[in-house]
């Protein structure tokens, strides 16, 4: 029982390390959020204190709401993220099905071609992407962002989904074929429902970089009407840099939605990472 005796101090040490790092990870976010709800003097005099009845103030949020178009930015971000996500999942699953289900000439080559984008970042083609969008009149439209993010998300989605689709039983698909189902029906009604957990994992991985991206909104859609939250917050904070209440409130508004989404999906995300590596 040597391990049992040794385990108490070791567990204490483990908790100490993890707790210390959790503090490092959460402290900056915590400081921003509590100070967003304080009046200006309290922000500077006692930055680490929680907002009390005397120091509580929402003046920062009022400034953000009256000066910035944050509702519009949120709407843009939601549209771009959801439509791109839908396209990545649908097109990705279709291509993954073709690659994992059928033997055809060039199958392996096609798989490698589509996997190229996992390692080479799409940003390096920005010069030509911008020219393409200018030529097609898509600059300052959400469509431009949706197209770019769809292309960006596809390689990893196809890679992960085709791994999962190989595990779907052949008997099931063949039974469907015997019953006279078309290949499309087999895909949409038999295979897709079975790979739903994998789709959820891909969705979370695809969503976070799209929501957080600054580069493409800055280059392809910087107009006021097409700004995403990430770009909008960046511009707003740049303009209001001396108004600490407004800056802290804008940051808090940008943090909260992602945080809520993460807490909802965190189990899915962690399960996805673990399943992908264990495989």
């Amino acid at each position, binding site marked *: 029982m040597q*391990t049992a005796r040794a385990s108490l101090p070791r567990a204490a040490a483990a908790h100490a390390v993890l707790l210390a790092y959790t503090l490092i990870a959460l402290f900056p976010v915590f400081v921003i959020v509590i100070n967003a709800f304080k009046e200006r003097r309290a922000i500077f005099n006692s930055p680490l204190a929680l907002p009390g009845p005397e120091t509580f103030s929402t003046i920062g949020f009022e400034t953000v709401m009256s000066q910035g178009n944050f509702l519009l930015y949120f709407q843009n971000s939601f549209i771009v993220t959801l439509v791109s996500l839908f396209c990545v999942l649908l097109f990705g699953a279709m291509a993954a099905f073709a690659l994992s289900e059928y033997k055809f000439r060039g199958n392996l080559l096609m798989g490698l071609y589509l996997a190229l984008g996992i390692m080479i970042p799409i*940003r390096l083609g920005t010069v030509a992407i911008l020219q393409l969008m200018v030529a097609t009149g898509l600059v300052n439209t959400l469509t431009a962002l949706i197209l770019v993010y769809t292309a960006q998300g596809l390689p990893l989605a196809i890679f992960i989904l085709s791994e999962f689709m190989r595990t779907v039983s052949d008997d099931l698909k063949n039974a469907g074929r015997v019953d006279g189902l078309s290949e499309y029906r087999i895909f949409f009604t038999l295979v897709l429902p079975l790979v739903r957990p994998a789709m959820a994992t891909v969705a979370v991985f695809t969503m976070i970089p799209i929501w957080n991206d600054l580069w493409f909104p800055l280059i392809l859609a910087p107009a006021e009407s097409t700004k995403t939250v990430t770009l909008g917050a960046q511009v707003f904070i740049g303009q209001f840099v001396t108004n600490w209440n407004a800056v802290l409130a804008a940051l808090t508004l940008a943090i909260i939605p992602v945080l809520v989404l993460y807490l909802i999906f965190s189990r899915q995300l962690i399960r996805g990472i673990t399943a992908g590596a264990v495989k």
Partner: protein
Amino acid sequence: MTAMDPGPKRARRWHIAVFLAPAVLVYTAIMIFPLFATLFQSLFTRVEGQQVFVGLRNFTTLFGDPRWSASFWNALWNNTWFFIVHMLVQNPIGILLAAILSNPRLRFRGFYRTAIFIPTILSFVIVGFVWKLILSPLWGIAPSMLDMVGLRFLFGPWLGQETTALTTLALISVWQFVGIPMMLIYAALLSIPDEVIEAAECDGITGWSQFWKIQLPLVLPTIGIISILTFVGNFNAFDLVYVSQGAQAGPNYGTDLLGTFLYRTFFGFQLQLGDPNMGATIASVMFFIILIGVSIYLFLIQTRLRRYQF
């Protein structure tokens, strides 16, 4: 692999093309084509509104012309240092946290995992400004916290000094992304079968020596993947520097990375006009750097790592 189509043999199986078409079209048109168009444009220059073929002259300008080369080598060196800091700080911390978390008897594992991963989901805009505020000498959170532990004298305007700004930014980026190596290694550690660990315990190998001798060698392939992901991510980085230091990557270009250099060259800044051809040249150099890194990993490192099948 999968069984062949058992139904009646069709001369052409159009459904394969239909399944592949949307993904291949979007991917080719928006990603592959622009990538190669960009590589192609680096061979041209604009003279009086006309594109003129100049071969590799843009590259010799970038590497040799004093107006360009100083900025380029500065950005390349900064980028390399940025990567080194990640490899030396982010990945060891990630491995350490994962090793502690993977102990099945530990309580509150889910809480720690969720909490430590939170910075990773935040956008660069949030991360950049949050740290800018916290490290700001104006607000004084960082100095007063250092004061509490008696280290006040260590404080300086870290993001504003040429000598410390880049390392500070790299450490902020480490803070943000430590969750990724932690999660991947954690997953790899969980996949080691219990029998292997029990066999080690029977041989009297426990605690840290068990980690060094048994677990670490088994997760080396994952560490390889993390290294190449870090490499690609770092040599493509832009957002954090742009958000916290601006496109000028101050102080005095001390935090200029290839990404910010590309942005300034392509779009221009202040009095300098944007130059798409030189921008394409820098993007091509970044492309080749990443390609070389990925090739080294695929052909030299990955083939030599022993994979263990359980």
